[in-house]
């Protein structure tokens, strides 16, 4: 494996680096250059609204995170401790909800909630909680599962009542996992964009939404750039703080898997498991059902008009929204196809390079993760204001949106592939070589056959990311080139009309497509299984990937 010729390794590493420099580093630098202008910094920082937006962004993220943790602990416990019919299904269901595009999740909650709650911050927080339940259930659940029940029993025999056992024993032991989950949920909700665009009132603004609003509605590019950097600075500071505090509290807990989850035995246990699992399933499924129901609930009663008449978006005869839902579907599929191609090729090349290049590879690996840490809105915004000058005026090219999506998707292709590449026994290649195969042939015969599967997983993830991507696309897509999430957001803004019903129909299609792709990945055994260490690894990335792009 590591016997690739030096020039080839160089080439393999260089290609993704060039891509990263051109499509990420340059726009990012340009964004900073745009923002570094005393006037706009002063304006943004001097506006009291800026700080109330920062405050709102923070508190809704804190509340969303806390609620997600609290609500997620019960299903995490039930799934970790008990084996019951539908356990796997429940876990799969939560994961499916988690990988849904943000716009779809917003749409589902819009469909579900009574009008009095629509467009309130509570609707937004509710959507955040349901959306992110899987993070808590999976992250905390995995640790909980490996926490021996006897340790809790030991505390009980020493006189600790169940609440005290939880406080004194369980909670401290699952805390690192809970903290990790909280960090992820906080990152997602702090940079929430799609959910808020769909579900929030016009005045509900996270920093991310405000960046978009300033840039695309008020034309204040420099102020938007300042806000984008302000958001990154806050996230960066939090990351540093959380990594420092994580280091301080990190402690190697030698938790061994014991007997695994047991069937509930007593009546109380059965009731508890059924109650928690049932409630969780209801919470996860109801928004999806509401979505479908709303897509056949038109202003003229229950019918399939929105579905049969999907191909137009007329407000009234002759007056149209200027977007064609069927076109949006086609645009999305085309974009997803190109994203998949770009991300898979670059991801495969990068993975090969990283595996072969050792130290330099590690750097590239980390570099490719950068776009995920940056918000999608910032990526799209940076690209839009950077590639605007001949000969680099790429705003109207067909490939700019897929490239933006690929930036977010590549790391996940790399991660899916890299694990397999590293696991291939180098001895195998040597063996092939000693049997007289040329290096190229040995590579083809030994390495290549193992690559298809991870690449297929990566490709499916890339496609799912692209289909649901909203933040970067909000900037990069042009009139007439709307993708599904863009079309859904626009249609759902039209209260009480058939247009909104069509928005729900499109959201249903997008939800089905995403879940279908994720199930495809699951069929390869890499996604929802979730219990055996190595296999369950990519699934965590899926989740992350899915959402990183919004």
């Amino acid at each position, binding site marked *: 494996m590591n016997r690739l010729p030096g020039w080839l390794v160089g080439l393999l590493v260089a290609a993704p680096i060039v891509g990263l420099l051109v499509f990420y*580093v340059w726009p990012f630098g*340009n964004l900073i250059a745009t923002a570094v202008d005393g006037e706009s910094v002063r304006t943004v920082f001097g506006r009291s609204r800026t700080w109330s937006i920062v405050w709102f962004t923070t508190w809704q993220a804190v509340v969303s995170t806390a609620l997600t943790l609290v609500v997620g602990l019960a299903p995490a416990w039930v799934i970790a401790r008990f084996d019951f019919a539908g356990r796997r299904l429940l876990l799969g269901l939560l994961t499916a909800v988690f990988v849904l595009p943000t716009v779809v999740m917003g749409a589902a909650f819009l469909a579900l909630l009574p009008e009095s709650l629509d467009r309130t911050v509570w609707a937004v927080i509710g959507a955040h909680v349901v959306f992110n339940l899987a993070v808590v259930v999976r992250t905390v659940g995995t640790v909980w599962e*490996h926490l021996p029940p006897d340790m809790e029993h030991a505390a009980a025999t020493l006189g600790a009542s169940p609440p005290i056992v939880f406080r004194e024993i369980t909670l401290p032991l699952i805390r690192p996992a809970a903290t990790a989950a909280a960090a992820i949920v906080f990152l997602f909700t702090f940079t929430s964009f799609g959910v808020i665009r769909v579900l929030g009132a016009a005045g509900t603004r996270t920093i991310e939404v405000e960046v978009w609003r300033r*840039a695309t509605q008020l034309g204040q590019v420099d102020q938007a750039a300042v806000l984008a950097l302000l958001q990154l600075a806050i996230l960066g500071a939090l*990351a540093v703080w959380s990594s420092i505090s994580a280091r301080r509290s990190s402690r190697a807990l030698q938790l061994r898997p014991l007997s695994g989850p047991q069937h509930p035995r007593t009546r109380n246990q059965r009731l508890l498991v059924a109650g928690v699992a049932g409630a969780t399933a209801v919470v996860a499924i109801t928004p999806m059902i509401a979505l479908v129901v709303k897509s056949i609930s038109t202003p003229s009663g229950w019918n399939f008009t929105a579905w049969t008449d999907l191909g137009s978006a007329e407000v009234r005869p002759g*007056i149209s929204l200027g977007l064609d839902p069927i076109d949006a579907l086609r645009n999305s599929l085309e974009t997803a196809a190109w994203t998949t191609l770009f991300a898979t090729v670059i991801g495969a090349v990068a993975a090969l390079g990283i595996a072969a290049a050792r130290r330099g590879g590690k750097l590239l690996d980390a570099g490719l993760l950068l776009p995920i*840490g940056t918000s999608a809105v910032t990526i799209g915004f940076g690209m839009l204001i950077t590639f605007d000058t001949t000969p680099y005026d790429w705003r109207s090219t067909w490939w700019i949106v897929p490239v933006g999506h690929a930036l977010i998707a590549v790391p996940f292709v790399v991660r899916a592939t890299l694990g397999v590449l590293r696991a291939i026994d180098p001895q195998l290649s040597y063996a092939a070589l000693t049997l007289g195969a040329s290096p190229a042939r040995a590579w083809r015969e030994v390495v290549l056959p193992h690559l298809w599967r991870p690449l297929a997983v990566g490709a499916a993830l890339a496609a799912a990311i692209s289909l649901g991507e909203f933040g970067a696309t909000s900037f990069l897509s042009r009139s007439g080139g709307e993708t599904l999430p863009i079309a859904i957001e626009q249609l759902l803004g039209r*209260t009480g009309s058939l247009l909104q019903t069509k928005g729900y129909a499109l959201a249903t299609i997008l939800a089905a497509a995403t879940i279908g792709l994720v199930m495809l990945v699951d069929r390869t055994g890499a996604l929802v299984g979730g219990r055996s*260490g190595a296999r369950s690894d990519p699934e965590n990335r899926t989740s992350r990937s899915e959402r990183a792009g919004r």
Partner: protein
Amino acid sequence: MTPTHTRFAALVAAALLTVAACGSDDDASTDDASAESEAPGDTSETEPADTEAESTEAPSTEAPSTEAPSTETSDSTPAESEADDAEAENADTSITLVTYESFPSEGTRVNDELARFTAETGIDVEILIAGDTGTMLSKAELTAGNPEGDVMWGIDSTFISRAINSEIFEPYTADGLDAIPSDLTDLVPNGEATPVDFGDVCINYDIAALDDLGVDPPNSLEDLTLPEYQDMLVVQNPATSSPGLAFLLATVDQYGEDEWQDYWLSLLDNGVEVVDGWTAAYYEQFSYAGGDRPLVVSYGSSPPFEVLYAETELDTAPTGVVESTCYRQVEFAGILAGTDQPDAAQQLIDFLVTTEFQEALPLDVFVFPANADAALDPVFTEYAVIPESSREIDPDTVDANREAWIDEWTDLVLG
């Protein structure tokens, strides 16, 4: 910690850490990046080479404007055979007209007129809807130099200075501009855009709905804050919508720069509803179109629209206009800088101010034609309201304060 969990946490930590790290990374590259992105800027300032080559005389053709449209190109002068020649010359040319969402995309006389333009010139016109005026303008700014279309219709006098400052338009003096009164052309002294129509943004009311409620129509802006009009008014967001901005300006005009905020607070208390655009306000919220709000910010020309398109024939307009609330708007069309079809774009601009096209406007776009020679349809003259005096704020004042007012309004009203 289990391997799975550790790896997951490591991945997340890596992602988070890189965010922190990238600050310094990218700082280092800032200089390079900005240098790179600025260098080619010079070339774009001087604008697409093809534009220059083909239309250098264009801006200076003001006075001798020939009556025939589309005689721009130096080689097709004879007026008689103009249609055939032009058609042959422009075969397969297609240009895109970017416009707001209330512009009819098919089935109206305006669209018929555009089809006639295609028949005469061979230039196909595609209509691209780009949202409400504010959104459309911002998009044009973000795509300046590489526009989404060739000609833009509908930036109005409340937004025009922003459009001019961000150089989204290629200056051009239309043939036939002399038919447009100077009080309109004076708004764009350098010819960045061409005035194509004007109208008044006014409070409209649903006569029958108010009747049913036993409420008299309001007479003034002040009336809208009265309890009897509670939860009745729907307005547009001035950040995204041009009538929304016009209405905001009307309130600024009425109450002054320091008092309009109080007025809006009263409107809020009285249950005003805000939507993003005119289409959503009028077609989805206004009671006459099926919504549940009998008062809407719309146009002085909306009543004739309702007469014309009524399902049963009407003698009187079903909606009314509160004249004292009217704010004057002039709309412009302009060639988007960076178009690769400057010649065809110029021909379209010329066409847009022709009497024939202008006469189609009132009944389909519900505005008054800018061309003084265009005759008005009787329905329009009978039912449209032209206030004796519309509100207007000096363009320079609007330009200086627009963003600040919108910001202030957003914080106040949207929270």
